[in-house]
């Protein structure tokens, strides 16, 4: 990827924001441009929208997560959800609403930087916790997964590396990643039913940002 990735953090815990600031200070490929307690605060701030926004899954700003994700995406950013605990229903909902990845806050810096890089490049930041939430999703609106997609998802959710997941399934790592991407895509498709012409118009606009 060309150049430095601009990143913002939206989290109402100041200690965590400070922690992330000092973390990213030593990382060359990432430039932390903004820290905010709410999405409103971030969007009201000056400057270009950042490439990637780290958004707290359980922000107490009174706004629905779906709303926050949509507004950030509308502003031109991509969203990586972060959270202290893995509330599986909320993770699935966030992915359906357009987030491109999920990480718990206890990850190491290298994992976080890699996830930011993936998302900035327009890909998905896969993690075992996200895979687990999707693999064992029992929500009524969950999309149908093919047996291969399920096998890869469950394998990756169990903590295997992508390479080991692929080896067990008898496929290449690239194919395994493709399956994981497709699962996410299915969720995002399922989360965007086209009902009306207005919906359709906004869908086209949304697709423009992809």
């Amino acid at each position, binding site marked *: 990827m060309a150049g430095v990735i601009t990143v913002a953090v939206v989290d109402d815990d100041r200690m965590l924001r400070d922690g992330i600031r000092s973390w990213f200070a030593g990382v060359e490929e990432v430039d932390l441009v903004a820290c905010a307690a709410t999405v409103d605060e971030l969007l009201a701030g000056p400057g270009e929208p950042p490439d990637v926004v780290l958004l707290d899954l359980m922000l107490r700003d009174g706004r629905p997560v779906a709303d926050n994700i949509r507004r950030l995406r509308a502003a031109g950013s991509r969203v990586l959800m972060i959270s*202290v*605990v*893995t509330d599986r229903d909320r993770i699935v909902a966030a992915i359906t609403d357009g987030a491109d990845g999920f990480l718990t806050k206890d990850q190491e810096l290298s994992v976080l930087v890699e996830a930011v890089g993936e998302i900035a490049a327009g890909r998905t930041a896969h993690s075992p916790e996200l895979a*687990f939430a999707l693999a064992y999703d029992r929500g009524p609106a969950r999309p149908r997964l093919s047996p291969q997609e399920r096998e890869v998802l469950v394998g990756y959710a*169990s903590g295997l590396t992508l390479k*080991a997941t692929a080896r*067990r399934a008898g496929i290449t790592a690239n194919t395994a990643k493709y399956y994981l991407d497709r699962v996410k895509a299915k969720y995002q498709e399922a989360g965007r039913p086209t009902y009306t012409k207005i919906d359709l118009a906004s869908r086209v606009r949304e697709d423009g940002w992809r």
Partner: protein
Amino acid sequence: MHHPFWGVAIKGGRRIDTAETGLHRARKTMVIATALYRGSHLTAGGAVVTQHQRDRLFPWLALVAAIVATALIWFMAARHRRLVSWAVGLDVLVIGCLLPFGAYAWGGARTQESIAWVMLLGGSASAMAAVAFGARLLAVAVMLLVATHLAGYLLVEADASVTGAHLNAVVFSAVVSWVLTWYLCRQGERVDSANRRALAAEAQRARFAERVAHHNALHDTVLATLTAIARGGVDANTSMMRERCAREAAYLRRLVEQADDREQASELRAALEESVRAAEALGLRVSARYHELPAVPGEIALAMARAVTESLNNVRCHAGTGHAFLTAAGDSGRLIVTVVDRGRGFAVEGAGEEGAGGSAGAETSGGSAVRTAPARRSGIGLDRSVYARMRGVGGRAFVDSAPGEGVRVELRWPA
């Protein structure tokens, strides 16, 4: 952590849910009582027909009709575990109300003696109606029976005393059977609600025991750490302190997630958590995730937990990584637990031996048994403890690895 109470509660729950409740037993008793009553009337009818009316066709037809109607009622009662009102209604109308007129018209029953056995069936019909019907429908049924039987006895010009005694019997069959039903059902409901309360109390006690265990753990870990930092004089930014905080945060995280999952607190989960905490205490970071754990017997939970402890130990000692993943999920009645690391791994020898090929594989589908071998073949200390332990309780263990790709131990029960 072993919860003796919880086991009782689960077993109790199964007993109450699948077997019959007190209400069921009450209804069954009434089905049997009315069946015996009807049986006595059919026996009496059979005796009269074979002795005095065997030359005529209609009495035989009437007897068969009564037996068929009764059989239908019993068949429906057996299926629904209670008297079914439409079947009883049919019996009241056909056997109770119409049959006496049939006996008069085609059966040549012109005397009170010859029609009496047909009339008797009305008594058991009214008794069954009292069990199957509500008050209003029962009143209609009894009035119909009384009216038709009065008409029938008037046709054969019976004695007023015989008529009176019979109608009295019809009415009081219903009354007695209604009172009995009411009383038994009330007792049954009381037993049921007492059982429910006992069950709830057991569950409450299990929850309490678990909470006490958690409180103790919180007290020894998170609270102690926070208190020490708050008091000052402790450098919170040492690697030892950070590790301790990370470990305790992991514990709290799982605690919160458990509450979020709305999953039943189970013995199995508690046992697995114990293994995880033991490994964490020795410095291993464990990402543990659970999904819809099935209720398994205590010894299975214990065997699983010990196998997990062994697998986590193996990660700690041999994998060259400080991080392990534990997942435990129910998969259509089968429990599948995996312990995975992303460490150095090893070359699995002897794949294909010990039936390793076919049945081994991932949770979701077959055909993924690539280099999956029974734990016995791994040769790194997983031998006896994991493989034999799982076999001993009717489960199985598989170990899969490749150099540089970590190790995956899968435990499943039943095998």
